[in-house]
C-alpha cells in the first residue's frame, strides 16, 4: 500500500534514495525530493490534523506556503521541536518526526471533536458573548479557555541552533523564481546590475517547471523544457546571486526587505550540528521586482473542508512534480479553465477522473475541448451542495445552479470519490506589494486586487500583477522590464509564445446549497474554522468594517493569515452588505508573509549578547570579592558585597556603618563624564545649569542641576574647572548619553556662536571614591607628597597628582556627607589603583560598598537621585533646592518655566522627609500617602520615593513627594498598606549631620 500512489518516476524525486520518517509515531517511507505532504499522500494519509475550533478532521489542501490545514509539530519532545509547520514546505530527511496538532488523544480519535457536534452553539463571538457574566468570573473562565487555546506546543528547552543576520545591498532584488522572476533576474544581471534572486522553494522554476502541456509553448518547446534551459543559463551569469529556500518575510519602506534563508532544516540531524540554521537577510535593493505569483483560491460550499478536498493546482503539482496521486477517484469543481489542466494531467497518467462540476454555463477553449474529447463528464451550471466522509472524503452531491447563482434546483447528483480538486480562480500574491505601502485596485473582470500605485522603485510582474497566461506574462514583462530597468532590449522581445485563452468566467463567492445556510458549513478560513455564516452573522450584528469582521470572526487570523479565504470573506461581505469590493478594500497585510522563528529574528543577539552590558575596569575585583550586581542603564554596577551568608539588608547595614565610622570605597566609574573645552565654556555652563559658573575658580568643583526647558529637573552632577577654558562635567550614570545629546543640540542649533567642544570621556577614566573619617589618612598613604590640609585641598576642590607613575585627577567631593576623595585615573589603571586603596586602607578596615549603600548614605543626607526622587515633574523648587537656582542670571535652560503659573503653585508635590512613628517599620518605595483614612474616594497626596533603615540613626528614614509638603513639617500622615496603616510624620529631608560637620572632619 505504501507506494502504489506513485504514478511515475518524476525527475524531481529521486526514487533511488529512500528516506524513512515518522508521522504520529509510525514509520513511513518517502523519497529524496518529497515534502512531508507529498510523502504522506504517497502513503495514502490525508488526515493530518484537526481544526482549531471544531476539531474537524483536516487534510492537505495545497502544495505550498499558503497551506492552512496540514500544519504539524516537528520533532516533538526534543529541543529542536517546532510547532505550526506547514507539511507542504517541510523537505523530509532521515529521522524526521512529525505529529498532528490540536487533537487529543490522537488525530483519529479526538475528544475535542465534540465541538463539531455542538457547533450550532459556538457561533462567531461565542467567547465574547458567553464569558462576559458575571464579570468577576473572568479569571476562572480564562484558565479553562487557555487550556483549549493555541495550536502547537512551543519548545521548553534552549534552542540548540545558531542563527545569523546578513546585510545585502544590490541593484535589483527579484522575489520569486517562477518564469517571470527568472526572466527578470536574467535580464537585470545581463545588463550589469548586481542582482539577487530569491525563492522560498528549493527548486527554481515555479509552476512552469512542471508545466508540460501542449497548450503552453515557448519557442515551440513545452514551457517546462524552455524554462529548464533558461535556469541552466542563469547559473553562469555573473552579477547574479541566487538564493533558494529563502522566503521574503517583509517589505518595508525604502526598499528594505527582510528574508529568511533556510540553511539546514532539510538536513539530517547529524548534518545540522554546528551549522547556521537560518539566516535573516536584511536586503537594501535599489530596485525590487516582485514576481511572487498567484495563489489558487478554493470555492466556498457546504462541507468544503474534508480531508481529500484539495486545490486543483495542488492535485496537479503532486502528480506532476512529486509523482504522487492524491486519489484514485477524482472529481474536480471549478469556475475556470485551470481545473481542466489538472484533469488532463491525471487523465494522461491513466488516473480516473469521475466528473467535473463547473459552475459556468460553458467554455469553448481548446483545453475544455480536449477534456470533452477524452470523454470526461462535465456538469455545467452545477454546484456541489454537500460532501460526505468524516475522516476522508467519500462522495459529493451536486445540483443545478439557478441563473442568479443564489439557489439550486433539480435533482441531486451523487458521485462517490476520494479526492476533490477545487479551483475558484487565482489571487495575485500582492502581500509584499501592500506591505511596502502599495495601493491596490480591484479588477472587476477577474475579481482580483492588483498593484496600482508603487510607493518605491519596484515593479510587480507575472501573475502577481494579474498576468495569468504565459503569453501575457512574457509580453508584458518585456515591455515593463525595459522601462523599469531602463534597458533597450530583453532576451525575449521576439520570442514566440502560445498559451491557452480563457473567455468564460463566473464568480460566486458563496455557493448555495439545498440546505439553509444555518445548516451548512461553508468554511472560509479553514484553520480558524470561520464559516460564511459566521461572517453573515457578524454583518447582521452590525459589523461593517472589514477589519472588525475579521477580528470578530477570526477570519484570516491563523498562522496562514487567510491566504486562501480572505478574498471570499471580502466577497461575501461585499455581496451581503451590497457594496463594491473595490470600495470595501482589504484587511492590512502585515509581515511576516510566512511565520518566522524567534531565532531568526534575534540572530546572534542571544545570551549575553541580547543586551550588551558595560563593565567598569574594576569589574573583575568585584566578582572576585563576591559582589552582587545591579543593572544601571547599560552598566553592571556592584550592588553590595555580602560576607559569608549575609543578605542584602545585613551587608548594607555593615557597609553603611563602616563608611561613616572609618572608611568606605565605591566604584564610581560609571558616572558620565563630559570633557568641555573652549573659550566660551564658562558661559555655556552658565546657560545649561541653574546656578552661576563664571566665578568658579580654576581647580574648584561645583554641584550643578540641569533642567529641561519645561523647568523639570533633568540631570545633576559635579563639574570641575580644570583650566581657564577646560571643565570636566559628571552626569548621572543613566543620563550620560542623553545629556551629551542635549548639550550638543543647544550648541549646534541654538548657540552656534559659542566656542565650546564636548567630548564623552566616560570610558576613559576609572573612578574610586574613598569616604569616611579615615579617608584622608588612606589617601596620605597613597600620595604622601600631596598636602591634604584644609588650606591646600579643601572640600569641593581638585588636584592633579601622581600615584607612583600613574597620573590621577583628585577631587574632594562627597555624595555621602563624609570627608571623601574621588580618584580618577586612566581606565586601564582602575583595578590597580583600587587594589592600592584597599591595601592602604586595610588597617582602617576600608570597606567596599555598592550602590545600595551609596543610596542609603545619600538618603541620610537628603541628597536626591535624579530619576528616583524625581520623575520629570519635579522642579528644583519642588525639591526644596531653591538655593541652587540663580536669581541673578538672565536666562538658563528652563528658567522661564519656573515662573509659569503651574510651576509656581503652592500645592505642587514637594520633596520632604518622612519618619515612621515606629522606627523599625521601613516604608515601601512607591507607597501612597494620605491624610485621611476614611475618605472615599481617598485623596492621594503623594508617594514614597526612597526608603531605608539607617544604621547610623538606628531608625527608618524615607524621602517622599507630598502635595504642599513644604508646609507640612511635623504633620501626621498615613500610608495605607494591604494589611495595615502606617503612621508617619513629615520631617526635614536631611536626617543626618544637618550642619555638614563631617565633610571636614
Amino acid at each position, binding site marked *: 500500500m505504501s507506494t502504489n500512489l506513485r504514478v511515475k518516476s518524476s525527475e524531481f524525486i529521486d526514487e533511488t534514495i529512500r528516506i524513512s520518517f515518522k508521522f504520529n509515531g509510525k514509520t513511513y517511507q518517502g523519497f529524496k525530493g518529497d515534502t512531508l505532504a507529498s510523502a504522506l499522500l504517497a502513503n495514502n494519509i490525508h488526515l493530518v490534523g484537526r481544526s482549531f475550533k471544531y476539531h474537524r478532521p483536516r487534510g492537505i489542501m495545497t502544495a505550498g506556503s499558503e497551506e492552512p490545514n496540514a500544519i504539524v509539530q516537528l520533532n516533538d519532545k526534543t529541543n529542536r521541536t517546532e510547532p505550526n509547520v506547514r507539511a507542504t514546505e517541510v523537505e523530509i530527511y532521515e529521522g524526521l518526526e512529525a505529529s498532528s496538532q490540536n487533537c487529543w488523544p490522537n488525530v483519529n480519535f479526538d475528544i475535542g471533536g465534540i465541538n463539531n457536534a455542538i457547533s450550532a452553539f459556538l457561533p462567531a463571538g461565542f467567547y465574547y458573548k458567553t464569558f462576559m457574566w458575571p464579570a468577576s468570573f473572568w479569571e476562572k473562565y480564562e484558565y479553562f479557555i487557555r487550556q483549549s487555546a493555541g495550536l502547537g506546543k512551543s519548545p521548553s528547552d534552549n534552542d540548540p541552533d545558531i542563527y545569523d543576520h546578513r546585510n545585502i545591498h544590490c541593484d535589483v532584488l527579484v522575489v520569486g523564481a517562477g518564469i517571470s522572476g527568472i526572466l527578470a533576474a536574467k535580464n537585470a544581471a545581463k545588463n550589469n546590475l548586481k542582482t539577487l534572486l530569491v525563492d522560498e522553494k528549493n527548486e527554481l522554476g515555479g509552476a512552469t517547471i512542471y508545466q508540460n502541456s501542449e497548450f503552453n509553448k515557448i519557442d515551440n518547446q513545452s514551457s517546462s523544457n524552455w524554462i529548464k534551459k533558461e535556469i541552466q543559463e542563469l547559473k553562469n551569469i555573473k552579477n547574479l546571486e541566487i538564493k533558494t529556500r529563502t522566503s521574503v518575510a517583509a517589505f518595508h519602506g525604502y526598499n528594505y526587505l527582510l528574508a529568511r534563508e533556510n540553511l539546514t532544516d532539510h538536513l539530517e540531524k547529524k548534518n545540522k550540528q554546528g551549522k547556521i540554521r537560518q539566516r535573516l537577510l536584511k536586503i537594501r535593493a535599489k530596485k525590487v521586482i516582485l514576481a511572487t505569483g498567484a495563489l489558487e483560491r478554493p470555492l466556498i460550499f457546504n462541507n468544503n473542508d474534508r480531508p481529500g478536498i484539495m486545490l486543483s493546482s495542488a492535485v496537479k503539482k503532486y502528480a506532476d512534480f512529486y509523482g504522487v496521486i492524491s486519489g484514485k477517484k477524482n472529481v474536480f469543481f471549478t469556475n475556470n479553465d485551470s481545473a481542466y489542466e489538472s484533469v488532463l494531467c491525471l487523465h494522461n497518467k491513466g488516473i480516473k477522473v469521475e466528473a467535473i462540476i463547473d459552475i459556468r454555463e460553458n467554455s469553448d477553449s481548446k483545453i475544455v475541448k480536449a477534456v470533452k474529447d477524452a470523454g470526461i463528464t462535465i456538469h455545467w451550471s452545477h454546484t456541489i451542495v454537500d460532501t460526505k466522509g468524516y475522516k476522508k472524503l467519500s462522495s459529493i452531491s451536486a445540483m443545478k445552479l439557478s441563473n442568479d447563482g443564489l439557489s439550486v434546483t433539480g435533482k441531486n447528483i451523487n458521485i462517490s470519490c476520494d479526492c476533490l480538486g477545487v479551483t475558484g480562480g487565482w489571487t495575485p500574491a500582492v502581500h509584499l506589494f501592500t506591505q511596502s505601502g502599495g495601493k491596490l485596485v480591484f479588477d472587476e473582470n477577474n475579481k482580483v486586487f492588483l498593484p496600482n500605485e508603487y510607493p518605491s522603485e519596484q515593479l510587480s510582474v507575472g501573475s502577481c500583477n494579474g498576468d495569468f497566461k504565459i503569453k501575457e506574462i512574457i509580453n508584458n514583462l518585456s515591455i515593463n522590464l525595459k522601462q523599469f530597468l531602463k534597458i533597450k532590449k530583453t532576451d525575449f522581445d521576439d520570442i514566440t509564445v502560445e498559451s491557452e485563452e480563457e473567455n468564460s468566467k463566473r464568480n460566486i463567492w458563496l455557493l448555495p446549497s439545498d440546505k439553509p445556510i444555518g445548516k451548512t458549513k461553508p468554511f472560509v478560513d479553514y484553520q480558524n474554522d470561520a464559516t460564511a455564516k459566521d461572517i453573515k452573522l457578524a454583518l447582521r450584528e452590525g459589523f461593517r468594517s472589514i477589519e472588525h469582521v475579521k477580528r470578530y470572526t477570526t477570519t484570516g487570523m491563523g498562522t496562514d493569515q487567510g491566504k486562501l479565504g480572505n478574498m471570499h470573506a471580502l466577497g461575501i461581505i461585499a455581496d451581503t452588505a451590497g457594496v463594491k469590493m473595490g470600495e470595501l478594500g482589504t484587511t492590512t497585510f502585515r509581515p511576516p508573509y510566512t511565520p518566522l522563528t524567534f531565532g531568526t529574528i534575534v540572530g546572534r543577539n542571544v545570551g549575553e549578547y541580547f543586551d550588551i552590558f558595560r563593565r567598569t575596569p574594576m569589574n573583575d575585583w568585584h566578582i572576585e570579592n563576591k559582589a552582587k550586581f545591579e543593572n544601571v542603564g547599560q552598566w553592571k554596577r556592584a550592588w553590595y558585597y555580602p560576607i559569608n551568608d549575609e543578605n542584602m539588608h545585613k551587608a548594607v547595614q555593615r557597609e553603611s556603618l563602616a563608611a561613616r565610622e572609618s572608611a568606605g570605597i565605591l566604584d564610581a566609574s560609571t558616572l558620565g563624564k563630559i570633557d568641555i573645552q573652549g573659550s566660551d565654556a564658562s558661559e555655556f555652563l552658565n546657560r545649561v545649569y541653574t546656578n552661576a559658573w563664571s566665578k568658579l575658580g580654576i581647580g574648584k568643583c561645583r554641584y550643578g542641576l540641569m533642567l529641561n526647558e519645561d523647568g523639570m529637573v533633568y540631570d545633576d552632577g559635579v563639574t570641575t574647572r580644570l583650566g581657564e577654558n577646560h571643565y570636566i562635567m559628571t552626569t548621572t550614570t543613566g543620563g550620560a548619553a542623553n545629556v551629551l545629546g542635549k548639550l550638543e543640540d543647544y550648541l*549646534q542649533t*541654538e548657540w552656534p556662536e559659542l566656542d565650546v567642544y564636548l567630548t564623552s570621556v566616560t570610558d576613559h577614566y576609572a573612578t574610586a571614591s574613598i569616604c569616611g573619617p579615615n579617608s584622608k589618612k588612606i589617601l596620605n598613604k597613597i600620595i604622601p607628597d600631596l598636602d591634604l590640609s584644609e588650606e591646600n585641598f579643601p572640600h569641593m576642590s581638585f588636584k592633579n597628582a601622581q600615584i607612583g607613575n600613574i597620573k590621577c585627577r583628585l577631587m574632594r567631593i562627597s555624595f555621602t556627607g563624609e570627608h571623601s576623595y574621588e580618584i580618577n585615573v586612566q581606565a586601564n589603571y582602575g583595578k590597580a589603583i583600587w587594589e592600592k586603596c584597599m591595601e592602604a586602607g586595610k588597617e582602617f578596615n576600608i570597606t567596599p560598598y555598592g550602590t545600595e549603600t551609596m543610596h542609603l548614605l545619600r538618603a541620610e543626607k537628603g541628597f536626591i537621585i535624579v530619576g528616583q526622587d524625581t520623575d520629570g515633574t519635579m522642579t528644583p523648587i519642588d525639591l526644596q533646592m531653591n538655593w541652587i537656582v540663580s536669581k541673578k542670571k538672565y*536666562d538658563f535652560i528652563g*528658567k*522661564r*518655566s519656573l515662573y509659569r503659573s503651574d510651576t509656581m503653585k503652592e500645592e505642587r508635590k514637594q520633596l520632604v522627609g518622612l519618619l515612621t512613628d515606629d522606627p523599625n517599620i521601613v516604608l515601601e518605595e512607591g507607597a501612597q500617602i494620605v491624610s485621611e483614612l476614611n475618605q472615599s474616594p481617598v485623596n492621594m497626596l503623594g508617594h514614597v520615593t526612597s526608603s531605608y533603615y539607617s544604621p547610623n540613626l538606628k531608625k527608618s528614614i524615607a524621602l517622599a513627594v507630598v502635595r504642599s509638603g513644604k508646609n507640612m513639617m511635623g504633620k501626621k500622615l498615613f500610608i495605607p498598606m494591604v494589611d495595615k496603616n502606617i503612621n508617619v510624620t513629615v520631617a526635614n529631608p536631611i536626617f543626618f549631620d544637618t550642619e555638614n560637620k563631617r565633610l571636614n572632619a
Partner: protein
Amino acid sequence: MFIINCPYCGERDQQEFKAGGEAHIERPKQPTELSDDEWAGYLFMRKNIKGVQFERWNHAHGCRKWFNMVRDTSNDEIKLIYKMGEKPPSE
C-alpha cells in the same frame, strides 16, 4: 527603515539617527519677556503634520551633528536635507 543622507557622512541607515521634532522653532532670545501662553507655545505646541514636515534630525550614532530634513510623514519620502542654520526652502 529609511536611508538618510547625512550632510556630513553620506547615506546611512535610519538606525544611526535620532529624530528631534519640528524644525525652525527658535528658542526665544528673551524668555522673560514672554507671557505664559507665548512661552507655552514655544515649549509645547507642535504642528505634527500628516504630509510634508520640516524636522530636525541628529546623526546620534555617527558624527553627532544635527541637521534639518523635509520629510513627508505619510510615506517617509525625504524631500530635502540641509544643514543647521541654512534657510528652509520657501516651497
